[in-house]
Structure formats: structure tokens, C-alpha cells
């Protein structure tokens, strides 16, 4: 009888070109490399310097998302980039993709979007694949049972030139999440809770597999939200085993297999699960029934409390440093803090279900006076779907900005930043000092919590605004 294996081990083993040795890491074959304008220029430059070609252009897929404006084009189609350099970076990606025969989804593509939103929407992300991208939130694709690593620019060059990545074999961390979520609690609250529980270093060096009844009950977009933030606890990747929900999402997508290929693919994908008896290097158990809507209060994603909870009252230097930057007081509640900006978007929470959740609270209500609200769909496809069901109208009627797809205020590279001192309730993934602009204070939250806070102008428990009250 074959040895029991984890999902991670099965995918890993399928892609080993050369095994790890005492002196050298494993050479791992990469099925798909996603590219964007910020982390690719120097990689293409290195290929040129060495006179190398892209080994498998049809295993690359590119988009523009990080430094692109989210404001509409002017009358003659011109885009208003934040800096000339941002435009130059985008222009160079066009040149590089054209030269190397790589499919690029630019302004003229109906698929363009945040790289981790677009890949799944196009069906490019499939179970059992190895996927890389020069972006730390590549773990998003693990929601499909793909082993997806964020890599640096040098490695982007390695994969362009060789379709391979050097990796020492990671450890495995199983996170079992069991139970039904309370009303008003979403995938974002689950992953914030998990990171708060295991810490920002809790997954270091590991590939996480999320499993259990809570994960099984989630749709694909929720699973993507969970896997997306795996890096925020230091993990190299996050995985969910594929199931009928996965196959249902993928079937009929443009780049998914079709016909006989589809049936063959699904039969294979059904084998991609952790065998009974296989063990993880470490196992963590989370009781999902106890999770409340969760928010960050500090300056890294592990500084998490329930939105109706109290800020830790500690005197260690990390806490003091965080409280000082956030202008908050230990032992106080976070709920009720005045909110200057609400950002609904990013590769964590910019998909249709996220926008629907936010719209469900904003419908028929108004954004509080003095609070600015940006809603940034993750892709052109998401934007079309949202507009087809009138979500844009709900947002604009409430007084929110409905913008063009992109990474936007998640990292503020494109000029979408808040003002120094502003408190931002954000559905993104990082609350580091200055991430959303110099001196900007970020609170990470779910789309429901963000929308509730937009309406009251204060950090708000969304359950207070859901039907039936808190």
C-alpha cells in the first residue's frame, strides 16, 4: 500500500525535476507564472543580459494592476498615471510581453485585473498546478489546491528562463477549522482570527493546508480570501483540497480544460487530497463557532481583536510602538473610533461576493459625512458582473466612489493613498506603518465591517446593522 501523503506532498512530488541534496535545493517545475509590471522588469532585463529566451511563453500570463490608475480614462482614452515611472513600467511590460510572446491583459482586455483575481476568473488557476508570481499574495491560488508561491524578482527571472524554481522542501502545517460561522462572520474574519491565534511568524517556512467543515462550506471566493493571507503568518503557501465547489467554479472558464479533457482533469483532481493517516509537521485546531467579526488594532496583521473586543493592555515595546503609531489606548475599545477612509478592494476582498456583502449593508443607506469610501473591484470581469446587478449604483447612491480595477489603496503605489494621520478601515491584507500612505493608520477588516464603518463613520460591528441587529 502506498504511503499516506498530504496534498502538499502529492503536488510537490509531481513537480520535482531534481531532488534536494545536502548542498542543493530541489528544482521544481512551474506550471504557470503570473506576471505584473512591478516585479518583472529587472527579470526580463536579466534574461537580455544573459542572452536567454523565455522557455515557455504559454506558461506565462501577464496583467497590469499595481501601479495603474483606478480613475477612468479621459475622453481620448488617456490614463492618468501617478508618476512617469509608473507609466514607463507598464509600457515596458507591453514591450517585454510582445518580444517574448507572452499573453498580456492590458487596458484593452476584458479580463484585466489584479493578478490574483484575474488568474482564477480566467480558469488559468487549476488544481494540482505549481504557480508562481512576483507577489507575496500568490498563495491566493492555493484555494484551488494549487501550490502557489510568491517569489522575488530574481526568481521571476529563473522561472522565465527555465520554467523552474529552486525550493527547499517546506514543512507542512495543518489548520483544521471546524464549525458553522456566526452571522456577520466571513472568511476574512476567519483568517484574521487564525493569524491572531498563531502569530505573524506562526507559519514561517511552512505550507499550510486549511481543512475542516468551515472550509468545506466556503465558496471559492471565500477560500481565496483565506489562502490569500497565508503569507501574513509567514507561510510560503496556503492550500485547500479541491472539491465539487472547486470544479463547479472552474467548469466553462476560458482557460479551463473542456470536453474529454475536462472529465480527465476532474478525475485526476479528485485524487488531490490529504490521505487518511497522513500527518502534518504541525496541526492547529480552530473552533470557528467562536470567531467574531475581527479587526486589527496595530501595525501588523497578527495584532487582531474581535471588533467588539478591547485593545490589549500590555506594556511590551511592540505593543507600545503599535499603540503610539495607531494613536490608540490599551484596554480601550476599537469600535467607535472615527474613520476617515474606507477601502473596499485588494486581492483579499475585491471579488463579486465581497462587493455584494458590502452592498447589502450600503443599500438604501448613506456613507457618513466626512468619511471617504473607495470601492475598487478586483477585475474588469468582476466590475461587469457587479454593474450587471446594479451594485455600482448602490455604492454611488450611498456616496461611495466606484473605481476602476487595480491594487489601489492596498499599497498605494498608484497614488491612491490616504492622508497622514487618517484612520482607514480596509479590506486589504497589510496594516504596516505607512502602507497606505505616510502616517496612515490601517485597520484590516471584512467587507461587512468596512461597509458598516462607512455608514456610521466609526469602527462598527457589522452585526449592529445586519437585519435583526446585534
Amino acid at each position, binding site marked *: 500500500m502506498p504511503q499516506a501523503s498530504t496534498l502538499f506532498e502529492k503536488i510537490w512530488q509531481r513537480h520535482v*525535476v*531534481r531532488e534536494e541534496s*545536502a*548542498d*542543493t*535545493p530541489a*528544482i521544481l*517545475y512551474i506550471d504557470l507564472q503570473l506576471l505584473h509590471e*512591478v516585479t518583472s*522588469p*529587472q527579470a526580463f*532585463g*536579466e534574461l537580455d543580459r*544573459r542572452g536567454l529566451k523565455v*522557455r515557455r511563453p*504559454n*506558461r506565462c500570463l501577464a496583467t497590469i494592476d499595481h*501601479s495603474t490608475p483606478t480613475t477612468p480614462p479621459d475622453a481620448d482614452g488617456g490614463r492618468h498615471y501617478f*508618476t512617469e*515611472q*509608473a507609466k*514607463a*513600467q507598464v509600457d*515596458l511590460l507591453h514591450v517585454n510581453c510582445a518580444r517574448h510572446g507572452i*499573453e498580456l491583459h492590458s487596458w484593452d482586455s476584458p*479580463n484585466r485585473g489584479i493578478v490574483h483575481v484575474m488568474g482564477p476568473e*480566467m480558469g488559468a488557476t487549476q488544481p494540482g498546478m505549481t504557480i508562481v508570481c512576483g507577489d*507575496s499574495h500568490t498563495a491566493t491560488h492555493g484555494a484551488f489546491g494549487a501550490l502557489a508561491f*510568491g517569489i*522575488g*524578482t*530574481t*526568481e521571476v*527571472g*529563473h522561472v522565465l*528562463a*527555465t*520554467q*523552474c524554481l*529552486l525550493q527547499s522542501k517546506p514543512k507542512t502545517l495543518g489548520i483544521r477549522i471546524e464549525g458553522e460561522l456566526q452571522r456577520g462572520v466571513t472568511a476574512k474574519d476567519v483568517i484574521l482570527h487564525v493569524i491572531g491565534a498563531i502569530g505573524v511568524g506562526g507559519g*514561517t517556512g511552512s505550507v499550510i493546508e486549511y481543512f475542516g467543515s468551515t472550509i468545506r462550506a466556503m465558496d471559492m471566493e471565500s477560500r481565496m480570501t483565506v489562502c490569500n493571507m497565508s503569507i501574513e503568518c509567514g507561510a510560503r503557501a496556503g492550500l485547500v483540497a479541491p472539491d465539487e465547489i472547486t470544479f463547479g467554479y472552474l467548469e466553462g472558464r*476560458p*482557460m*479551463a*480544460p*473542456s470536453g474529454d*479533457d475536462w472529465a*480527465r*482533469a476532474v478525475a485526476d483532481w479528485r485524487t488531490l487530497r490529504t490521505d487518511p493517516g497522513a500527518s502534518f509537521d504541525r496541526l492547529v485546531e480552530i473552533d470557528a463557532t467562536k470567531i467574531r467579526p475581527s479587526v486589527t488594532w496595530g501595525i501588523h496583521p497578527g495584532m487582531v481583536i474581535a471588533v467588539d473586543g478591547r485593545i490589549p493592555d500590555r506594556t511590551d515595546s511592540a505593543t507600545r510602538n503599535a499603540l503610539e503609531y495607531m494613536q490608540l489606548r490599551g484596554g480601550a475599545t476599537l469600535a467607535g473610533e472615527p474613520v476617515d477612509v474606507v477601502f473596499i478592494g485588494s486581492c483579499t476582498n475585491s471579488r463579486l461576493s465581497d462587493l455584494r456583502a458590502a452592498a447589502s449593508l450600503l443599500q438604501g443607506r448613506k456613507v457618513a459625512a466626512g468619511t471617504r469610501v473607495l470601492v475598487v473591484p478586483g477585475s474588469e470581469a468582476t466590475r461587469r458582473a457587479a454593474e450587471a446587478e446594479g451594485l455600482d449604483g448602490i455604492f454611488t447612491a450611498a456616496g461611495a466612489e466606484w473605481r476602476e480595477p487595480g491594487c489601489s489603496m492596498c*499599497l*498605494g*503605489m498608484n497614488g491612491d493613498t490616504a492622508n497622514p494621520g487618517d484612520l482607514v478601515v480596509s479590506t486589504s491584507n497589510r496594516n*504596516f*506603518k*505607512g502602507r497606505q500612505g505616510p502616517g496612515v493608520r490601517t485597520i484590516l477588516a471584512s467587507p461587512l465591517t468596512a461597509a458598516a464603518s462607512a455608514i456610521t463613520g466609526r469602527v462598527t460591528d457589522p452585526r449592529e446593522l445586519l437585519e435583526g441587529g446585534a
Partner: protein
Amino acid sequence: MSTHESNSGIIESRTFNLPVDNIDTDQIIPAQFLTTTTRDGLGQHCFHSWRFNEDGSAKSSSPLRRHDPQTQAVLVAGSNFGCGSSREHAPWALLDFGFEAVISSRFADIFRSNALKNGLLPVTVDDAVADYLLDHPDQAVRIDIRNHRLGIEGYGEFDFPLDPFSAYCLTRGIDQLDFILENTEAIESFEDGREQPPRREPG
């Protein structure tokens, strides 16, 4: 003048000190300078907010003003150097600024790996050695990469850790991409050996 010769694997230089703990990659190279398309020229933005006022004028209080690019190719910094964002622009900026090695009692994992990938040598020393160096600015040092030895003039010689693969590459005079390219035949046979349903083009 520092004499880092890749063939000899020796860096001989004087040290430049930044006695600050937890220098993160946002300090080394702020996000506003990530919109570059080449690796060159990032040195002018290295430690930008330490060196320049908001109006772009040079800060008279900047410790970097004391750096002598002609002689000081080895940076000595406080503990946990390179924490934060994984940007490779951080080692690129340090290299372009003129540093060939950084000495600290602790490096953040990703920075360490990015530095090694890009030919910037992270030298981890114990607290006593770090303290000595931080107390003795502009110290003459000799770093023997092949043998992982740090020599401090008038103080002593110390081993520093270098992972086996970095040592493997350094002693063979290749980088990581060269190593993968040496395995091209294995990559080809891997590709030949697996069933590859043709990828459908988007509709």
C-alpha cells in the same frame, strides 16, 4: 578602496556603522522608488528618508553623510537587519550604494535570501563581535567568502554561517540561475515525460 574580487572570494574593506536595530526594507528603499525598470541607480534612494528632507534637500543630521564610498564597502548594522517587505530592491539599493557585505547579529530571513541571490553578502556574527564593531567605526575587515571567515584587524577571526547552496555556488563561481541552467537536460526530460493537455487560449 575595497578589493572585492569575485575570483578570490575576498572582501577587504573598512566598515561603516549604522547602530540601529530593526532597520526594515522600507527604510532601506521606500516603496515610492519601486517603480523602477532597472536595478541601476537605486543607490541614490538608499536610506532616502534618513538622508533627505521632505523637500528633497539633504539632511545635515544624516549618519550616511559620514560614509566614504571609496573605502567603506562593508555595512555594520544593528540586529534584525532587513525586516519587513520582501522587496529585492533593498539589496539592489545597498549594492548600488556601494556596499558588498552587511554585518549584523541577525538578519531577517527573506532579506538574507534576497541578498545572497544578488551577491550582497550577509555576515551574521554573535552579539559580542557585533558590539565590538559597532563600538569601533571605520574598522578594517577581511571577509573570506569561501571559508566563511571574518577577520577584524586587531580583534580576531570568526566563522560566519553560509548555507550550503550559497557556498556551493560561490565556490564554483556560478549563481542560482546558472545552477538551474546546468540542469536543462533534466528539465527537458521532465517536460517530455509528463502528459500536457494543450492549454486553451482564452475565448
